Every structure is written in structure tokens, then in C-alpha cells.
């Protein structure tokens, strides 16, 4: 029997169908209204934050007692705070702090979580030790841990980044480890072993790509937790310090003046809520888009 003919046919039909399915993650995401909105809001925020010097000439640190607690108006789109600082500048430059903290915390926490999570999920011996440490870290309330770290090193952006990374590594590590445990037992990994490949090679080339999608989802949640965590730390005075503006810091200062001017609270608060909400929505949509089982059901 010549096996070529029927196979030729199956090859052609098989290669055409998935080509249409391969619409790309970005397009699949954009097709969902919530995801599209979240991406739009985030993109707008990031653009505004990056373009801060173009949008306002005011400095977020310039105190102007003559113009304190001005309501939103021309010249001060978002009004001024109790020291006469321009609120628009505070929101924009505060956002810069949030982005920096979010970016670095995500980068640090996720790299550590990926490396240790893969090792932990793959090698039983490492797992036994590492998971006890993680259990210990998780048993501590995150904010207490971050507070302790921030209090120990002193307030600065670096402190906040390190403290939040420390707190956020543990849950992300668990996600990576759990996924590695699942993938490790799949037939494709056994097949790779049967080929005789080295374990390190199997871990980095075969297991890592297979656990990437939950990692991507986790990263978006880590980012939002970092932004929120920075705001919380700054709110209780252990944040980035007085030289750097931050949404959390602005909210803390605004607390005493809520009755005098709603805008001091509303604008940084709204910026924070919008950012966190969009990040979480993006994470949810990512999860749906990356899960082939949900692909058809929730359009």
C-alpha cells in the first residue's frame, strides 16, 4: 500500500484550518469589549504619564501657598492641593512612580518566581526545601512583610520595589510550580526524556514554554498588586518618600482636606482605581484568551 496519497490530503486540510485559527493573541484580546477597553485605558494612562512634561508645565513639587485648594479650572485642570501644588502634575508624575514600581517589581518577582518555580516543580528535593520557605513567607501578611522591609531599609523607590518583590514572589512561585508539576507528567515530557535529552534542557526548552501562559496572566496580576502595594505603602508613609510623588502619598496627604476639596482625593484615587481595574480586567481576558477550552465559549 502506498501511504503517500491519503496523507497528502490530510496534510493539506490540516495545515489550512489552524492558519485561520492563528489569529494572534492581540487580535483575540481586542475582540473582547472588556479587554479592548482595558487596553485602551492602560494605553491612554501610560501615554499620558510618559508625556507628562508635554501635558503640564507645572512641577508636582512646586509649593504655591497663594493658590492652595483651587478647584479644577483653566490653568489647573485638576485643581491644586493644600500646598498649592498642581494636581494634574501630581497625578501624572505619581503615575510615573506607579509604573516604575510596577515594572520593576513584576520583572524581579516574576524572574525569581519563574526560575525557582520551575526548579521546585521539577526537582522534588529542591521542592521540599523551597516550599517550606514559601509557606513561611505566605504565612506573613504581605503588608506587614513589606512594612518591615521598608522600615528596615528606609523609604525610597528601591525599598518599595524590593519589599513588594519579596511579598509577591511567593504566590507567583506557587503558580509556576503548580503548572510545572502538571506539565512534568505529560507524555510530551516523557517523550523528550525517551529521546535522552538532558534534564536542564527539558526544563528550559520543553517545560518553560508550556507554562508561559499562566506566567503571563500572573505577571499582569503581580503588576497590579505592585501598583496597589506601592500606593498602600506610600499611604502609610513607608513608600517612596517625600521627594517622589505617588498616588498613595497624594491620597494620604489629601485625607485631612477632603471637606475642602474633593478633587485632591478623587483624581489620584480615580487614576489608581482605573489602573488596577484595567490591569485586572486585562489579566482576566488574557486568561480566557490563552485557555483554548474557553476560546469559543466566551466571545
Amino acid at each position, binding site marked *: 500500500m502506498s501511504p503517500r496519497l491519503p496523507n*497528502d490530503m490530510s496534510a493539506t486540510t490540516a495545515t489550512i484550518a489552524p492558519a485561520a485559527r492563528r489569529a494572534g493573541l492581540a487580535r483575540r484580546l481586542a475582540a473582547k469589549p472588556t479587554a479592548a477597553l482595558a487596553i485602551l485605558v492602560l494605553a491612554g494612562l501610560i501615554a499620558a504619564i510618559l508625556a507628562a512634561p508635554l501635558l503640564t508645565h507645572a512641577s508636582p513639587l512646586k509649593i504655591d501657598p497663594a493658590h492652595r485648594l483651587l478647584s479644577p479650572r483653566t490653568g489647573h485642570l485638576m485643581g491644586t492641593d493644600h500646598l498649592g501644588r498642581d494636581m494634574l502634575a501630581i497625578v501624572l508624575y505619581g503615575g510615573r512612580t506607579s509604573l516604575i514600581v510596577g515594572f520593576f517589581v513584576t520583572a524581579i518577582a516574576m524572574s525569581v518566581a519563574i526560575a525557582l518555580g520551575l526548579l521546585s516543580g521539577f526537582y522534588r528535593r529542591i521542592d521540599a526545601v523551597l516550599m517550606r520557605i514559601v509557606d513561611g513567607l505566605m504565612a506573613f501578611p504581605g503588608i506587614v512583610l513589606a512594612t518591615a522591609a521598608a522600615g528596615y531599609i528606609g523609604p525610597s523607590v528601591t525599598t518599595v520595589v524590593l519589599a513588594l518583590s519579596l511579598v509577591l514572589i511567593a504566590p507567583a512561585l506557587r503558580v509556576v510550580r503548580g503548572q510545572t508539576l502538571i506539565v512534568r507528567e505529560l507524555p510530551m515530557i516523557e517523550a523528550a526524556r525517551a529521546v535522552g535529552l538532558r534534564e536542564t*534542557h527539558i526544563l528550559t526548552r520543553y517545560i518553560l514554554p508550556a507554562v508561559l501562559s499562566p506566567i503571563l496572566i500572573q505577571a499582569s496580576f503581580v503588576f497590579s498588586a505592585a501598583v496597589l502595594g506601592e500606593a498602600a505603602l506610600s499611604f502609610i508613609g513607608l513608600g517612596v518618600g517625600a521627594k517622589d510623588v505617588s498616588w498613595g502619598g497624594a491620597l494620604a496627604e489629601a485625607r485631612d482636606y477632603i471637606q475642602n476639596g474633593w478633587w485632591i482625593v478623587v483624581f489620584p484615587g480615580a487614576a489608581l482605581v482605573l489602573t488596577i481595574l484595567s490591569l485586572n480586567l486585562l489579566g482576566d481576558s488574557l486568561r480566557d484568551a490563552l485557555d483554548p477550552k474557553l476560546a469559543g465559549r466566551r466571545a
Partner: protein
Amino acid sequence: MNALATILEVRGLSVSLPIGGKLTPVVTDMNLSIARGEAVALVGESGCGKSMTARAIIGLPPPGAEIAGSIVLKGQELTQLTPSERRRIGGREIGFIFQEPMTSLHPTLSIGAQMTDGLRYHLGLSRTAALERARELLDRVGIPRGRDILAGHAHQLSGGMRQRVVIAMAIACGPSLVIADEPTTALDVTIQAQVLDLLARMREELGLAMLYITHDLEVVADFCDRAIVMYAGDRVEDGQPEQCLTRPRHPYTSGLVAAIPRMGGTSARLSPIPGQVPPVGAWPAGCRFAPRCAIADEICATRPVFDAGVRCWRPLASPAP
């Protein structure tokens, strides 16, 4: 059988697994040898230890498994090797074909990357050379336009194509032994025939020794030179496939044959073997098949010895003269 041509020689192989904290035997006293160009079938119901035997041979037993006995591949004792030596021998000298081509290929790595990994590692080929070799291999297993396939992913291929890719990977490094674990179970009947055909052709062209694991006696008859029937971790019968099918000697083999559905058969009903395979750890002390055997008597309470191709005190017919 010429001793020089013997590729694989397994003697007294036992595999025990830690089940419920206790080391429980799942394969006992397994003997088999495969010569160059010979195909030996390992037949039996699921859970009889055939896959575990294969796993022991390729050196991928489940964690905690204990392996006793000897496995000699081309004169080299595999059980004495360190894990890394074992890996180098295993991946290069033994090709493994898995049951499910759907799950034994990586979904996000390109076919080319998966095919070339072993070639580069074992044969030290460059990326380009390995890709060229992979294309030749695909051509060899009947996949034209190899270049496109190599750049693509597993999900773009049909089941039959995937199994061809898996076969190409198994023969990639020029192994002397190929172990196929129910390679056609997950495929359509027409594709099954093609894949079997391909395996037979590869065996002939490359002079491969082949261990073919299946539960399908009839496939065995067309395809294999010898059949080893396993029951509850035991080798119960070892002989020519035709003989096993037409004049089975062990009552279990006879039961298996009687349970094969036949078109136009005189009997309207299938005759299943009564009872169930005893679970691992609860094997009878004597003949493990005795509780389900119609002709068992007192002597079957003692463990039978493997003699003249069968492990039975009351073998059915005498073998072909």
C-alpha cells in the same frame, strides 16, 4: 538465532513499584530477546505489565521503581549504567514510539525543533545539518514537503501525520531497537494500517529490532515474528503469533483469542474470560490465572514454571511439530 545478531536480551527482569508505601511487584521474571530485524510483540490486557517492561528497558521507570535482572543491549548491560550514560545510550540506541501522537509532541515547539534536539545532542550535528537530516527522515516516513512541516507545529498535523513524525523521531539517531507502545491505538483503522506498514518497512530497511506492545492479537499475527503474552506481570506464553492465534497453549491466550470479535462467526456472542485481572499486589500465589481458568486444578495452587514456551501446568495443545 544467531547470538551476534541479538540486539536486546532481557533476563529475569522484575519491576516493583511503591504502591501504598509498599514495594509491590508489577513485572516478575521477564525474559525476552530480540534479534536484528526481528519484531517481538508484547501482548496483554492493560495493567499486565507490558508498558512497565518497556519503561524498564528504556530506563524511564516511574519514580521509586525498583528494577532487578539484566537488560543487555548489543552486549552492554544497561542496568549497570549511570543515569547520564543510560540517557546517551537510550536516546541514541533505542527509539520509542508512544501511544498517543496527540500528546507526545510538544504543542508550542516547532516540529523541527523537536526533531533536531535529539540529533544535535546525540550526533552533535549543527542546527542546519540536523534540520536537513530531519527533512530526510520525514521524507523517509512518507511526509513530503518536509520543510513546511518542520516549521509548523503539532496541532497543524493530522493524527497519522503526527505518528509519522514520532516514528521519524524514533529512528532519527539510527537506533538498533525501536519500542512501540500501542502506536496505532489512537488512530483510525485506515491510518493504523498505514502506520503498521510504515513500521514494517522501517524495520526491513534499517534492520531494526522491534518491540511492539499491543493488546491486539490480530495485528501481532501480520506484523510480528514472535509474540509474548503477558498476564499479571508474568510471561505466560511465548511463541509464533500464528500458533498463539490458532493453537494457543496457555488457557489465557486461548481466552484472549476466543474474545476476538469475528465477522460472520458462528457464535452470536463473544466469549469473554470470566472474572477480572487481579490487581497488582493481590496476585494469587500459584498460577496467577488459576482463579479465572476453566481447567485449573490443585496443582495450579503452585506457581508453574515457564517451560516449552508456556507457563502452565496444563497446557492446551502441543506446539506445531
